[in-house]
């Protein structure tokens, strides 16, 4: 074991360095010092504490403030021993929970300025699609964009149909109808003759599948929709089915 001789008084340091027997004693003392904290602390009782404090007071005069502090310490230890660790742990847990709840609420912004601002995903999508339509050069590109628009409108309807008033549902239904007829159906009619048949077939198949899915989804939602939303959902299902039939008829 490495002995730190610098801890020894200067007058012994030289001797211990040269004397193996003394060196061994110092090593044992160092080792004992290291191991001592690992020993279990024997349980203390209020009586032991009281006796110790009485001996301290008897040995030397103690200032009154320190004396009061010592007595308070004694009282707390007695209380802790009486109530037991479960109660103490319970109080500590309750305090932490209380702090956690306070932390959670203080993390929320105040109610007035608080509601987080949500951007409208449908508006964002429609701006993107309109911009894309401005630079789309072929009917195939426009057909893809219109299929996306139809899908977005259907998704928005699915989000609000359970609580939307009739006017909003009607607006969604009309936009959906226009997107299918004036978007998808019209673009399929403008496919040039020289468009590669294989690509054309694949694109039409994808569009038809999307419309079929939308039709089925709208019909499913209509079964559970409130009365003001049901006619629009059924109309959407019909429109999507008509669009799908039209697109399927164009496939060779």
């Amino acid at each position, binding site marked *: 074991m490495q002995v730190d001789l610098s801890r020894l008084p200067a007058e012994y340091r030289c001797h211990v360095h040269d004397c193996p027997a003394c060196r061994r004693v110092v090593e044992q003392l160092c080792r004992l010092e290291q191991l001592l904290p690992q020993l279990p602390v024997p349980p203390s009782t209020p009586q032991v504490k009281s006796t110790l404090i009485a001996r301290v007071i008897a040995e030397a005069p103690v200032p009154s403030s320190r004396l009061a502090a010592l007595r308070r310490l004694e009282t707390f230890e007695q209380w802790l021993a009486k109530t037991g*660790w*479960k109660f*103490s*742990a*319970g109080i*500590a*847990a*309750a305090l*932490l*929970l209380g*702090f*956690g*709840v306070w*932390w*959670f609420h203080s*993390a*929320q912004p105040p109610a007035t300025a608080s509601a*987080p*601002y*949500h*951007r*409208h995903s*449908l*508006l*964002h999508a*429609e*701006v*993107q*699609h*309109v*911009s*894309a*339509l*401005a*630079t789309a050069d072929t009917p195939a590109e*426009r057909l893809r964009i*219109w299929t996306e*628009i139809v899908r977005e409108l259907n998704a*928005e309807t699915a*989000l*609000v149909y*359970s*609580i*939307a008033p009739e006017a*909003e549902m009607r*607006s*969604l239904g*009309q*936009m959906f109808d*226009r*997107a299918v007829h*004036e*978007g998808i159906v*019209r*673009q399929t009619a403008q496919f040039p003759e020289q468009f590669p048949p294989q690509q054309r077939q694949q694109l039409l198949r994808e569009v038809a599948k999307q419309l079929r899915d939308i039709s089925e989804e709208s019909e499913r939602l209509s079964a559970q929709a409130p009365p003001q939303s049901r006619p629009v959902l059924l109309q959407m299902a019909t429109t999507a089915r008509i669009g799908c039939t039209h697109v399927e008829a164009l496939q060779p």
Partner: protein
Amino acid sequence: MNLRPAVVVGVAWLGSAWCAAEAPQTAPTAAEQLRLFQTNRQLLEQLLNHGVRLSESTSSLQRAEESRAATMTLAAAVQAAARGDTPERVAELGDHLGTIWTVALLPTLTQARQEINPESPEYRRLQHLQQQAIIDIDRIEEQFQQADSLPPLIRQQLQRIRQQLQDQSEPPR
């Protein structure tokens, strides 16, 4: 060594910390989604009209003209928002206006400029359109300056777009 108190306290601490970490991220509810739709309903219908007309356009000039019409629709929405809505709403619509300007109007103008013969009557229409687009930007900036509510990012974007439009307006060499 008895670890039970430490475990009880630790679990309580972790529980409350988890609650605090979980809560703030929320998606819009159905009611919030409906409110968004009601707020933007008219704008959505107008944009759909622009989309239909863009699909029907047969030339780049027509598409540029329709794109400019779409920027006017969004500019009106931004101005209305600046009068009464939150800054977030103005910023949202400002972003959309910037998108239409940069992704729709500028490219279609560029394309039209490449396709149209400077001697043709369409070229005069194109020049007029470019001048109108610059005037639109000036007008929006002016209105916002009066209200002192033009977000700096939108202002920068407008200046950039105006510069591009002015560069495009230069006669071909």
